[in-house]
C-alpha cells in the first residue's frame, strides 16, 4: 500500500513542517507543548520511515520510491528523490536518532526549547533529503542548508567557546563544499543534466576526473572528517550540546561517507583509482594517529570525538581499498571488494548508533556534574550502577567487541584490507588495540575505582527517560551486532551494482 505514497517527500517535509509548527508554538503557556509536538513529529517521521524498509525490494539496484518533478527549468534541475540499498538504512538511522535526540533534550534544554526542538526537526528533514536527493543541485541545496540549523544549535546551546567552534564548523564545511558546486556546474555543461545517475555515466577524461575528484574530496573529506581536515570536529563536539554532538557524530559524518559512495566513486572511478593511495593514507593515518591522539585527551567528549574520526577512517579505507584489491591478481573477482564496501557501510550505520550512545552517556554525566573532565570523575559505578552497565556496554561496542555492531563493520573492512595489502590490514587492526586502550582507560578512570569526590557520591542513577533512550540504542547495537544479515541483504544489490560500475574505466 505504501508503494504509491510519495514516501520520501513525506519523510523530508513532515519534520521540516513539524519544525515550523514547533517554532510557532513557541515557549509560552504550557512548557511541554513544544516538546510534545516535537516528539510527535519525530516519532511520526520514524514510523513513516519503516515502510521504506519493509517495502524495499532488495533484489534490484535501481532507485526506488522515486519522485521526479521539474523544479528549475532554466537549469534542468529536478525535484528528484529516490533511494537504493545504500541510502535507505541511513535514512532510517536518521529518523531513529532524531527521536532519541528529542527525548534526550526533554528536560535538559531550559533556554528556548521550542527553537531547539525545531532546529533538530528541520535538520532531520534536510538530512533525509541529502540521503535521498538524486539531482546534484537538489542535493547541494540540502547539503548546505543543513549547516544552518547546526550552526544555530552549537552557537546557541553550546558550551563556553561555542562561537569559535560553530564558526569554524561552518566555514570549514563551506570551504569544502563550494568547490564541489563548481565541479557540479562543470559537469552540467558536459552532460546537460544535474541528474546524479546521468553523471555516473558521463564520460570524463583523466584531467577532468582528477580535478573533479579533488573537488569532491575537499567536500567529503571535511565532512567525514578525514585527517588532516578533521580539526573542526573536536571543537564542534566539545562545544555542542549533547543532542548536537549526537546528530553530528551519528549522521552528519555519515553524509561525507555517503558522498564518496554516491559521487566520487561512480563519477570519477579512474581518478579514484589513481588517487586511492592518498585516501588510504589519510584513512590509515586517521585510524592510527588519531587513535593515539584520543588516548591523551582529558575531556571525555574530545576523546569520543577523536574516536569518531578514527572509526570513520575505516569507512573511507573500506571504500577506497577496493582498487587495491582488484590490483592484486589473486582476487580478480568482485567478492573481496563487496566485503570492503559493505563493511564500510555497516561501519557507518553501526557508528551512528554507538557514537550516539557514547555522547548521550557523556551527556547523562554532564547534566549531573557539569563537567566533562575525566579527572573530575571516578567510581561512578558505586552511585550509578545501571548507567554504568550501559556505559560499559557501549564502550565495549566502541572497542569492537564481537556481538556488538562495532565488530561487524571493522572486521569486514580489515578482512578485505588483507586482500589488498597485509600492511593495510595490520595498521587498521591496530585500532583494536588502540581503541581498546583509550576507551577502556577512560571507562576505568570514570566509572570504576573508589568514589572520587563528594559530587560523585551524590549522583542519582538514570531516570526513566534516560533508561529508555539507552535501552533503545543498546537494542539497536546488539541486533546489528548479532544479526547484521538483513542490513547486508538490503544493500547487497546496490553495492554490487556500484562495484560493477566503477570497475569499468570511463576513459
Amino acid at each position, binding site marked *: 500500500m505504501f508503494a504509491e505514497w510519495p514516501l520520501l517527500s513525506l519523510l523530508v517535509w513532515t519534520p521540516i513542517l513539524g519544525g515550523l509548527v514547533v517554532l510557532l508554538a513557541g515557549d509560552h503557556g504550557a512548557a511541554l507543548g513544544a516538546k510534545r509536538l516535537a516528539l510527535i513529529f519525530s516519532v511520526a517521521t520514524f514510523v513513516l520511515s519503516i515502510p521504506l524498509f519493509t517495502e524495499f525490494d532488495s533484489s534490484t539496484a535501481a532507485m526506488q520510491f522515486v519522485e521526479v518533478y521539474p523544479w528549475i527549468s*532554466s537549469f534542468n534541475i529536478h525535484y528528484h528523490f529516490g533511494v537504493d540499498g545504500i541510502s535507505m538504512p541511513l535514512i532510517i538511522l536518521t529518523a531513529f536518532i532524531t527521536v532519541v535526540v528529542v527525548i534526550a533534550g526533554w528536560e535538559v534544554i531550559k533556554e528556548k526549547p521550542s527553537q531547539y526542538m525545531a532546529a533538530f526537526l528541520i535538520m532531520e528533514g534536510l538530512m533525509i533529503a541529502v540521503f535521498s536527493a538524486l539531482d546534484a543541485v537538489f542535493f547541494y541545496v540540502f547539503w548546505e542548508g543543513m549547516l544552518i540549523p547546526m550552526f544555530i544549535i552549537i552557537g546557541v546551546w553550546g558550551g563556553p567557546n561555542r562561537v569559535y567552534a560553530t564558526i569554524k564548523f561552518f566555514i570549514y564545511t563551506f570551504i569544502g563544499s563550494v568547490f564541489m558546486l563548481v565541479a557540479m556546474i562543470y559537469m552540467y555543461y558536459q552532460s546537460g543534466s544535474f541528474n546524479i545517475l546521468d553523471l555516473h555515466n558521463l564520460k570524463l577524461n583523466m584531467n577532468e576526473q582528477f580535478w573533479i575528484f579533488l573537488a569532491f574530496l575537499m567536500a567529503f573529506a571535511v565532512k567525514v572528517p578525514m585527517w588532516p581536515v578533521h580539526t573542526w570536529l573536536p571543537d564542534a563536539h566539545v562545544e555542542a550540546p549533547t543532542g548536537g554532538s549526537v546528530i553530528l557524530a551519528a549522521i552528519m559524518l555519515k553524509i561525507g561517507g555517503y558522498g564518496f559512495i554516491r559521487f566520487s566513486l561512480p563519477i570519477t572511478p579512474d581518478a579514484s583509482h589513481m588517487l586511492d593511495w592518498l585516501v588510504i593514507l589519510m584513512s590509515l593515518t586517521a585510524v592510527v594517529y588519531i587513535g593515539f591522539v584520543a588516548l591523551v585527551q582529558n575531556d571525555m567528549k574530545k576523546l569520543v570525538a577523536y574516536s569518531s574520526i578514527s572509526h570513520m577512517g575505516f569507512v573511507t579505507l573500506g571504500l577506497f581499498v577496493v582498487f587495491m584489491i582488484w590490483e592484486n591478481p589473486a582476487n580478480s573477482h568482485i567478492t573481496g571488494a563487496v566485503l570492503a564496501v559493505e563493511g564500510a557501510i555497516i561501519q557507518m550505520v553501526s557508528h551512528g548508533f554507538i557514537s550516539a550512545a557514547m555522547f548521550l552517556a557523556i551527556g547523562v554525566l554532564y547534566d549531573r556534574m557539569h563537567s566533562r573532565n575525566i579527572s573530575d570523575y571516578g567510581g561512578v559505578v558505586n552511585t550509578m550502577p545501571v548507567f554504568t552497565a550501559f556505559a560499559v556496554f557501549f564502550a565495549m561496542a566502541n572497542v569492537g567487541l564481537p556481538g556488538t555492531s562495532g565488530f561487524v563493520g571493522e572486521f569486514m573492512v580489515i578482512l578485505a584490507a588483507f586482500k589488498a595489502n597485509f600492511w593495510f590490514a595490520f595498521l587498521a587492526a591496530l585500532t583494536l588495540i588502540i581503541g581498546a586502550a583509550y576507551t577502556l582507560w577512560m571507562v576505568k578512570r570514570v566509572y570504576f575505582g573508589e568514589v572520587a569526590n563528594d559530587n560523585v557520591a551524590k549522583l542519582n542513577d538514570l531516570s526513566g527517560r534516560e533508561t529508555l533512550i539507552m535501552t533503545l540504542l543498546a537494542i539497536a547495537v546488539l541486533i546489528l551486532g548479532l544479526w547484521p544479515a538483513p542490513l547486508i541483504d538490503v544493500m547487497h544489490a546496490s553495492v554490487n551494482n556500484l562495484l560493477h560500475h566503477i570497475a569499468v574505466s570511463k576513459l
Partner: protein
Amino acid sequence: MTLDALNISIARPEIFLLSMTCLLLVVDVFLKQSQRNASYLIAQISLIGSLVVIWMNMSGQRAEAFNGTFVVDPLADILKIFICAVVALVFVYSRDYLKDRNIFKGEFYVLGLFGVLGMMLMVSSNHMLTLYLGLELLSLSMYAMVAFNRESGTSAEAAMKYFILGAIASGMLLYGMSIVYGVTGSMNITEIAAAISTQGEMHIGLIFGLVFLIVGLSFKLGAVPFHMWVPDVYHGAPTTVTSYIASAPKIAGFAIMIRLLVEAMGSLQNEWQGMLMILAVLSLAVGNIIAIAQTNLKRMLAYSTISHVGFILLGLLAGTKAGYSSAMFYILVYSLMTLGGFGIILLLARAGFESEELKNLKGLNKRSPWFAFIMLIFMFSMAGVPPTVGFWAKLSVLSAVVEIKMLWLALIGVFFSIIGIYYYLRVIKLMYFDEPVETAQIDSSAGMQIALSFNGLIILFLGIYPGALMSLCFSVFAV
C-alpha cells in the same frame, strides 16, 4: 514630424509618474506638518500607479518613441516594475525613521520620485542623451537626499563627497560618450551598434571612449577601484536614504550597462570583457576582505554591495544570454536583500538612536525571534547559502562563467565568497549567540513590520522556487 513618430503613448508610465510628482510638489506646499501623511500617501499612489501602468503597457515587444531616443522592451518593463516596487518598500520602511528625526518632509518623497523617474529614463534609454538625462536626474536627487538631514555633519560630508565624485564620474561618462559620438557619428544606441559592426577595422578612438564609459559606469555601480564613495556615503547618509541608494539605482545602473556595453558596443565584447574582469575580481576581493574589518553595519553592507557588484560584473562579462540573464537575476535579488538588510536597521532605529553599529544587533533573537529570523534569511542570502535565493543568484552567475570556459574566474568567485561568509556569519552570531545590550521594545508601525516580513519571506520563497524569476530574466534577452 508627426505625432505618430513620437509614439508618445509608450511612455505612459513616465508621464504618469511625472504628473503625480508635480502634483505632490504642489500639494505638499499647502499641507500642515500634521497632514504630512498625505504626501506619503500620494508618493505611494504614484509608485503603485506607475507599476500598474507599466503592467498594463506591457506588450512583450520592442517599441521606440521620441524618434528612437526612448525604447520600451521586456527588459525595461521588468526592471521598471522592480524599481517601483523596491522604492515603494523603501518609502514604507522610511516613514517611522523620518518622523522620529523630525525630517518627515514632502521633499523626501519628491526627490525620491524624481529619482525613480530618472531611473525609468535610464532603463528605457536608446540614446546617450536620454541616458545621461536620466542618470543626472537620479544623481541630483540622490545628492540632495544624502544631505537631507541638514543638522547632521556626517550627512553633509557624505553628500559633498558623493557630489564631487559623482560629478567626476558623470564627466567621464560624458567624455566617453562624446568620443563614441565622434567615431560613430551618432548618439543613438541602435545606430552606434550598426556603425561599429559595419566598421571593418577597429578604431582606437572607440576603445578610448569605451574605457571612459566603463570608468563612469563603474563609479555609478561602485566597482573597485572606483568604489571609494560607497562606504562613506552609505555610512553618512540617513539610513532611509542609504536603503534607497543601495537598492533601486543599482538596477538602473545594470540597465545602462546593458544598453551601452551590450546593445551599443556588443561587437566590442572582447575589449570590455577584459576590463570587466579586472573590475569584477578587484571588487570581489576588496569588498569581501575589507567588510571583515567593519564595525558599522551600514559600512559592512556597503562593502558587501561592492562584492555583489563584483558578482554581477562576472555575469555580465560572460557576454552570453545566460550571462546577462544571470546578472539581471542577481541584481534583482540583490536589491531585495540589501533593502531588507537596511530595513532591519530602520526597524531597530528609534528617536535618537541609529542602531547602525554591529553591536546593536546583539541578542536580537531574545528581543524579537521573528525579526532575528528575517535578518538571518537576509544574511544567508547575501552569503549565498541555500535555501535562500542568494544561492541561486550565485549559482547562475557561476554557471554562466563556467559555460564560457572561464573556470578560474568561477573559482575566484567562490573563493571570495568563502571569505565573505565570515562577516555574514558574524552578524548571525551577534543576533543569536550574544546577550542583548539593548532592551527597548521594537515599536515600529505594523505596516513596516509586515512589509519587512514580506521582504524576508520573498527571499525565502524565491530560494525555494527560483524557476519563474530565472526564466523571466532569461526571456528578456534576445541575444
